[in-house]
Structure formats: structure tokens, C-alpha cells
């Protein structure tokens, strides 16, 4: 669909000119975690004096890739070369010594030490006197030199804690960029920056851009970010990861934000992947959920929407648009501060998850492993979890284990949970089958409204299709669905109506009947802030 040269996964198929020297070359990297493949035969090159953008959805494998490049993880197979020599760092420290530095997504700074100690963390051995004592004055001087080189206004002898989050983020970046340049004196450092700008204040961005340009002249920079505008601005080349595969390599000057986004989420569709023939008009159906001016600062403000029985209402928006927080608000996990929620005709005064569950609302969170299920526990336990008070215990509190197992077996059969048995620990199942377990937890209560937050994240294609079929079947039975998703195609394919959020507010509402589905471009245009490029990363 786009005029792009896609890296075939073969080292020979690289599209760089013969003349461009590759600093770092990676061939057929593969990494699995349990049953899921996180990186699948990924091959690429990082040419000298370039800034490379690395983009992809959550779970596409970006962080895993950086972890391997910086020696924090070991690939299952595949080879890496740095400056033409085989490169297999055994630790982050080893990678640093070879000139590969990294700024971390979560700040890796120690707050209660002076700034210079953080800037030179791991380099203390260079500042030893008599092999024992730290020469703090020399350290402070070296750190001051780094700060000066970046034209960054910070007193290196002050406590790290005394600087705000944004300045600390600059320190993190400084350390990654300049330690290899100034201290290790690596000839051609490769600097990996993992979402460095998400915590950066506007006034520090300029310093950051300058820094990247400076490092670029010496070596190369790999820049991971969700902010596509910045990626386009800073990077020369952009690699797109999708489900562990490198799906595209784009030159920034040829690419647009919309194109990048559709590359990140796009995927070849089957003819009726989303079972659109089963999407029927719901105009006549009664309203199931009516939300009026719901406000839960800072994530979302003044959101109004309705869901009819049998209707799928999709909520789309960029990362940080507040859509996940809204889902938590409606499901009663983080009760909103203002506005009203009317459910089946009567107002719910204090939305609180336990009560809403009793009323027939089900919530599937986006973070399956931390919020959705307990991996070490058996499948049956994970299914019965939300019904402990009504379905699976007697009035006196005795647990009904037999019933629990019977219900679990029933859902294993019904939803085709592969290798599922009531007693198998859920972490032995693949992502798709785990998600089916989470869905079963609610299905056994026959809910009337499902709030689904990215229900197919980290789920393989086959299971995805099954989940879509299940969602359709639910709507046939009159269940209302509020679908929050980052996947554009899923949003378009499934929804009757689509609500687009931007910085916590409803930016648009789009009808999506079977015969007139909106295009990805239409929706993207609505998601991207038109006038003001500043994005709030609130609440996601």
C-alpha cells in the first residue's frame, strides 16, 4: 500500500548503498518468552552518522530489541556485529565498554546522590586515586564538562532529587550520550534512547535535539518513541516493528505520520476478519449505558457517550488520549470525579467495580499479565475469580470446587482454549488462550455490558479472529460492548460507532455502518492534534 522498501529479514536484502558503513549489523535475531515469539528473525543495519527511529505498537518488541543490543538480554538465535566484529555483550556494562550506551525508559537515576555521581554511574573506576578512593573533584569536573558540552544548565554538585523530572530525564539522556563520547572515547558510539522524550518538558527538547545531532556526527543514535512527529523530525531512517517482525524501513523524508501509524498497526486483512456481515443496525435498540460529562482529571474531561444493547462502540485515540483511564472510570475501578453514568435506565451514584459486576458489567484490562490474570494460579481459579460471592461459594462461604472445575471445563471446550485444563497454571498458556480465560471469567456471569481495553493485545492472529467472532456473538445476544483499542483496523472493523479522544476529550464521533466504514486516514486525522503538537501523557 505504500511505496516502501521492506526489509525481507535477510541480511543481503538490506537496502543501503554499498558505500554506507554499518556501525551495527544485526542478522536474524529471534527471542522467545515462553510460548510467544517476541522477536522473529529481525535483521537490520545501523549505518554511521545516522539517527534511526524505531517504532511499533506496545508489545511489538522494541524494548526487547534494545535489551538485546545493550547486553541485558541474550537472543535465542541470531548474530550481531559491531564495527564488523561479532558483538555479543554479556552485560550492560560490557556493552558500554564497547561503545553502546542507553537511556532507559524508566529513569535509572539514584535520587539521593549528587548529579555528577549519576552522570558517571558505572564509570567510577576511571576516577580512582591509589586504586581505592574516589576522586570526587575530578568526577565533578568531568560531569561539569558533559553538562557544558550539552549546554544544559545544571549544577552537578547538587542532589539529583532537587531537579524536576524533566531535568532528570535530560541527565539520563546525557549520561547515555556523552559517557561513550567523552569518557570511554569509543570511536563510533551507538546510543540507544528508549522513549527519552515522553517525560521531557518542551524547553528541554531543544537541548535534546542538539545532543542527538552531536552524537550523530560521532556514531549513531537509535531513537525509540511513540511521538511520531518527533521521530520524523529527528531521524534519518525509521524501522517499523510489528508483532516481533521488522515490517518496514522508511526514509523520513518520504514518510508521513499517518503512513507510519498505519505501518505500525496495519496488517493484511482476511475478507471478513471482523465478521462485518454480522453487524446489524442497532438504532432501535434500547440504550444500555449513558455516560454524561464524565470527568476524571487529569486523564479525561467531559466525556459523554451512549452504548445501546447489541452495539459495539469503539473508542480510539493516541497513547495518552485518556481512553484507558476512561475505561477504568466507567468500570468503577477509578471512580470518576464528576458526571453521571446511567445504566439500564437508572443512574449509578457511586460507580464501584463490585457493584457494577453484580449489575452485569464486565471489564477486561489492557495489561493482561499484571491486571488481567494471575499466571501462577490454575485456569479454573482465574475463571471463578469474579464470581466468588455468588456463583462459586455457598451462603455460608464454602467454596464450590466441583462447580468451579465444571464451569472451567465447559469454557475450555466452548472457547477452544488450547491445552486448557481446569488445573493448568495460566502462565503455561499462550497470550490468546490467556485472554480467553479472562473473557470466560466474565462470560460465566452472562454480563450485559463488556468494557474491553485492547482485548487482542499480544494475541496471535488465530485467537484474535476467535475473539472477534465471540464479540460478534455477544452482540447478537444483546450485550453492549465498549471497545477501547489502539489497533485502528480492529476499531474500524468491529465498531458500530467510533469515538475519537484527544487529550482526554471527545474529539469526534464517527458512524461506522457496515456499508460505510471510515478509513484509517480519516480516523488518524481526527486523532492527531491539528494546531498544537504538544501532547499530554495523562493517565494511560
Amino acid at each position: 500500500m505504500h511505496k516502501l522498501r521492506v526489509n525481507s529479514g535477510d541480511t543481503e536484502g538490506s537496502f543501503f548503498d554499498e558505500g554506507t558503513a554499518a556501525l551495527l549489523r544485526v542478522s536474524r535475531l529471534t527471542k522467545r518468552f515462553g510460548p510467544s515469539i517476541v522477536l522473529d528473525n529481525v535483521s537490520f543495519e545501523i549505518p554511521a552518522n545516522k539517527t534511526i527511529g524505531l517504532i511499533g505498537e506496545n508489545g511489538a518488541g522494541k524494548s526487547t530489541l534494545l535489551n538485546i543490543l545493550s547486553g541485558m538480554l541474550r537472543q535465542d538465535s541470531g548474530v550481531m556485529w559491531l564495527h564488523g566484529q561479532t558483538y555479543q555483550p554479556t552485560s550492560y556494562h560490557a556493552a558500554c565498554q564497547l561503545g553502546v550506551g542507553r537511556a532507559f525508559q524508566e529513569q535509572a537515576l539514584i535520587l539521593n546522590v549528587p548529579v555528577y555521581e549519576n552522570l558517571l554511574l558505572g564509570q567510577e573506576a576511571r576516577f580512582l586515586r591509589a586504586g581505592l578512593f574516589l576522586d570526587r573533584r575530578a568526577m565533578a569536573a568531568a560531569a561539569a564538562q558533559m553538562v557544558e558540552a550539552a549546554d544544559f544548565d545544571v549544577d552537578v554538585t547538587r542532589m539529583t532529587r532537587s531537579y524536576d523530572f524533566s531535568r532528570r530525564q535530560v541527565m539520563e539522556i546525557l549520561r547515555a550520550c556523552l559517557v561513550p563520547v567523552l569518557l570511554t572515547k569509543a570511536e563510533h558510539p551507538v546510543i540507544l534512547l528508549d522513549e527519552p522524550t515522553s517525560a521531557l518538558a518542551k524547553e528541554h527538547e531543544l537541548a535534546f535535539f542538539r545532543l542527538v545531532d552531536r552524537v550523530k556526527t560521532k556514531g549513531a543514535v537509535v531513537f525509540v518513541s511513540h511521538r511520531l512527529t518527533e521521530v520524523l523530525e529527528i531521524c534519518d531512517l525509521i524501522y517499523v516493528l510489528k508483532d516481533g517482525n521488522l515490517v518496514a524501513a522508511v526514509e523520513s523524508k518520504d514518510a508521513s505520520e499517518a503512513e507510519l501509524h498505519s505501518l505500525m498497526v496495519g496488517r493484511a486483512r482476511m475478507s471478513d476478519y471482523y465478521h462485518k456481515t454480522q453487524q446489524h443496525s442497532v438504532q432501535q435498540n434500547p440504550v444500555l449505558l449513558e455516560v454524561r460529562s464524565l470527568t476524571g482529571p487529569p486523564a479525561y474531561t467531559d466525556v459523554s457517550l451512549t452504548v445501546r444493547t447489541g452495539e459495539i462502540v469503539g473508542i480510539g485515540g493516541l497513547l495518552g488520549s485518556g481512553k484507558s483511564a476512561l475505561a477504568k472510570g466507567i468500570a468503577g475501578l477509578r471512580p470518576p470525579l464528576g458526571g453521571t453514568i446511567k445504566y439500564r435506565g437508572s443512574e449509578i451514584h457511586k460507580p464501584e467495580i463490585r457493584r457494577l459486576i453484580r449489575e452485569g458489567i464486565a471489564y477486561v484490562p489492557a495489561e493482561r499479565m499484571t491486571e488481567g490474570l494471575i499466571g501462577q494460579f490454575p485456569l479454573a481459579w482465574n475463571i471463578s475469580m469474579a464470581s466468588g460471592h455468588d456463583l462459586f461459594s455457598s451462603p455460608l462461604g464454602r467454596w464450590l470446587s466441583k462447580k468451579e472445575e465444571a464451569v472451567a471445563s465447559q469454557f475450555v471446550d466452548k472457547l477452544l482454549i488450547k491445552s486448557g485444563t481446569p488445573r493448568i497454571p495460566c502462565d503455561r498458556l499462550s497470550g490468546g488462550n490467556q485472554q480467553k480465560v479472562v473473557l470466560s471469567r466474565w462470560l460465566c456471569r452472562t454480563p450485559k455490558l463488556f468494557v474491553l481495553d485492547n482485548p487482542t493485545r499480544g494475541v496471535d492472529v488465530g485467537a484474535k479472529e476467535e475473539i472477534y467472532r465471540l464479540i460478534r456473538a455477544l452482540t447478537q445476544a444483546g450485550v453492549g460492548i465498549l471497545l477501547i483499542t489502539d489497533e485502528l483496523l480492529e476499531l474500524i472493523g468491529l465498531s458500530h460507532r467510533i469515538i475519537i479522544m484527544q487529550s482526554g476529550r471527545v474529539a469526534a464521533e464517527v458512524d461506522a455502518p457496515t456499508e460505510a466504514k471510515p478509513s484509517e486516514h480519516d480516523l488518524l486525522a481526527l486523532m492527531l492534534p491539528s494546531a498544537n503538537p504538544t501532547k499530554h501523557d495523562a493517565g494511560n
Partner: protein
Amino acid sequence: MLETKLPDTIERKRTSPGLDRSWWLPLAVIIGLILFFSATSNTFATVRNLTIVSAQASTLLIVCIGATFVVLMGSIDLSVGATVLLVGAVSVKIENAADIGASIILVGALLGASLGLLNGILYAYGAVPSFVVTLGSLSIFNGLGLQILQGRAITFNSNALDIIAIGQWLPPLQNIALCAMAVWIAGVLIAQQTRFGRYMYLIGGGEIVAKNSGIPVRRYKLYAFILSGLIAGFGGVLAVARLGAAGPTLGQDLLLNSLAAIVVGGTSLSGGIGGPARTLLGVLIIAILDNGLNLLGISSYPQLVIKGTVVITAVLISQSRGTGALIK
């Protein structure tokens, strides 16, 4: 289809968190200790000694059962020993003031429960970490108990309590051992067959997931501390009944011993794994070790060193690598 066929499961060894491979290790240690002490001491493997060991282990087992639930849900209760002291001291005072016979057990249990309620409210609703709450209440309860006793041992006489504690309905076991076994069985049944027990596992295994599923997490945290206090109170009365007195050292060794027994038994301090069933094994290890070392004439200071070593070693071996056990 395009998808790669993935192995969906690798193996199916483990069945449920209640029953798995870490059972055999504590069992092996118990058998090893029994063999070792039988060989080195000629008084260890005697009926008389069995009576002594079982009685000594009883208070520990009772107190541990309640505390196991707290550990199971990922918290910690350091105050059980101090609860035993305070409840013991109060019971002796009451019993000396007005001989109310065996109903003192009920009074003691209720007093313990209210002490647990105090811990639980501060922890679940005051959002103070359980370690801090129970460390504080440990000091408070100890102080109150010692104040009541004025630092001296106070004796008392009650036929009814004598029968319940040191009578022998089932020789050679003293009745206190039967009480302890009853508490243990009740604890196992609660853990494995009730809603309360299941929620303890769920909260310990994944508090956020439990919350997202509508489980009233805070309320059940409170229940766990009440149960722990209730059982400790019951244990406190039985302890003074067995000794015929409440002294300033009452319950002192329970702080270390209860946590050691729970952890050695195989309940993870990070919660969600283990349970009362296994705590029995931990209690047996600690009790046999104490008794055996005494019989060998090893003085109490080296005993502490040996006990600490055994606890750390047992946990070191039984823990699978990478799963750190940290208190939430």
C-alpha cells in the same frame, strides 16, 4: 493461516498452588532430624519425650496457623508473640480475680481478635505497611503485657484449664496438642475449602487482579488480621494454661519461631503460595530442632545460631531461582 504454530503448553507438572514440589524438602528435613536425634540422644525417641515435644510445639502451631493466612495474602504479622503475652497476662489476671473457668478461652480469643482488628484497620484502611503496623503493635502489646505482669510471673489455678491444656484424653499426647491439631485441621479446611481461603490466595497472588475482579480486598485483609489475632489469643490462653502461669518471657520466642516455621514450611513471604497445611511441617522442624538440641545439652546461645542457619538453608534450597520472596 499465517500464524506460526506455537507450543501452547510445555508441561503440566504442577497441579495447584496448594500442592507442589516444595513439599518433599521439609518432610526430608523432618525425617533427617528425627533420625539424627534418635541416633545421638537416647532420650529423644521415647514416649515421654513425644509428650514433651508435642506440647511444646502446640502453642507455636496454633499461633502459626493464623499468621499463615496473613503471610499467604502477602503481608506479615510480627505481633502474634506479643498478642500471646498480652492475652496471657490479661487472662491470668481475670482468672485470679474471678474464676470463670474455661470460658476464659473465649475471652482470650475475643481479646486477641480485637488486637488483630486494630492491626487490620491500620493496615487495610490506614494503608500503613503490615510490617510497620505489626512492628509497632508488637512493642505496644509487649509493653502492656509486661506492665500488667509488673515484670513478674503470676501463677493461677483452674481445674478446667488444667484439663484442657495438660489433661490426656488421648495418651501420650496432652490435650493442648489435640487442640493444636484441631486448629490446624480447621486452618487447612478454611484455606482449601472456603471463599475466605481462596481470597487469601488471590490477594497474595495478584492483588490488582483480585481488585479488578471485584474482590473486596481491604475487607478480606482486615478479616485475615482478625483471624490471626483470634487464633493467637486462643493460643495465649492455652499457653498460660499449660504453664500454670504467665511470665514476662511468655511468647518471646514466637516472633522468630512463627515466621521461621511458616517460611520453612513453604509459604512464600511474597504471598499466594503455600498455606496452613505446610506450616505444620515448619512447626515440626522448629520444635524437633529445639527439643533435640536441648537433649544434646547444647546451650541456648549456639542453639540460636543453629536454628537461624537451618531456616536460611531450608529456604535457600527450596526456593526456585529467580522468584524472590519479598514482603509487600
